[in-house]
């Protein structure tokens, strides 16, 4: 069972209280973009084995979207953070690198 701490209300919420929002930090390509860019934005996901950044919604709780970093192989949660950022916070990145020295970065 995945347990994530909502950064907005501080509840340590288990999976059934949350709704998944899939990969985080996607760059949106809208109507002015090329077909290839739009296709990549729409369908191409990294789906890594290991460190993954995701969107989650505390849907049965405070209702807010937040972001989480976890390992898809071990379900280890590295941290959760507010959704109003375009990249993961530096201290979280540092903590992940410490635990996963061979991690290639999120980009």
């Amino acid at each position, binding site marked *: 069972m995945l347990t994530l701490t909502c950064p*907005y*209300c*501080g*509840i*340590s*919420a*288990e999976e*059934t*209280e949350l709704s998944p929002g899939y990969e985080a930090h996607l760059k949106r390509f809208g109507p002015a973009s090329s077909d290839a860019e739009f296709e990549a934005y729409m369908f191409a996901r990294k789906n890594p084995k290991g460190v993954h950044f995701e969107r989650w919604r505390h*849907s*049965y*709780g*405070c*209702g*807010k979207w937040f972001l989480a970093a976890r390992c898809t192989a071990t379900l280890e949660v590295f941290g959760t953070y507010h959704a109003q950022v375009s990249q993961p916070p530096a201290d979280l990145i540092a903590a992940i690198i410490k635990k996963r020295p061979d991690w290639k970065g999120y980009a």
Partner: protein
Amino acid sequence: MFNPAAVSALNGAAFSGYARIREIGPLGMITLRAAPNVAALADAIKAATGCAIPQMRGIETAGGNRCAWMSPDEYLLIMPHADVPAALDAIAKALAGQHHLALDVSDARAVFAIEGMAASVLAKLSPTDFTALGPKELRRTRLAQVPAAFWVEGANATVICFRSVAQYVFDLLSHAAKAGTEI
């Protein structure tokens, strides 16, 4: 609009098991949405309910009125059903010209009181860690398949859910409170 003939969803349905389940209401409820940095927000809550502004997940009490923290920009004001129009006026006056939303949601909700061993009943139905739940805390969570919120006072608790699922929640609570199924 305030309806003097308002009736609660289940007309005061009650069940007695190892805990007593009772539908209460109609209860006045106002959803107040405003960013926490809106000036006079605390004054508006004070004017409408007499309560202090609650901290994260907190619920404040003043007489029979309450104010609960629902999310970083949402509060739930609870009061007698007949007091809602006056409270809405007080909020509109206190927050005039500032970005906010206050809405009477009394008729959108159903409220249940659980009397005795409430944590045992609720622990069967929601993924709540009752050891981490504070005495002045409103927990928004789910009861089986539907969203709900509750606060616990000693052995008793008050549960709020949507009116459309009132019968479902009453049946859930009653079933969980059947005599002989204590945990």
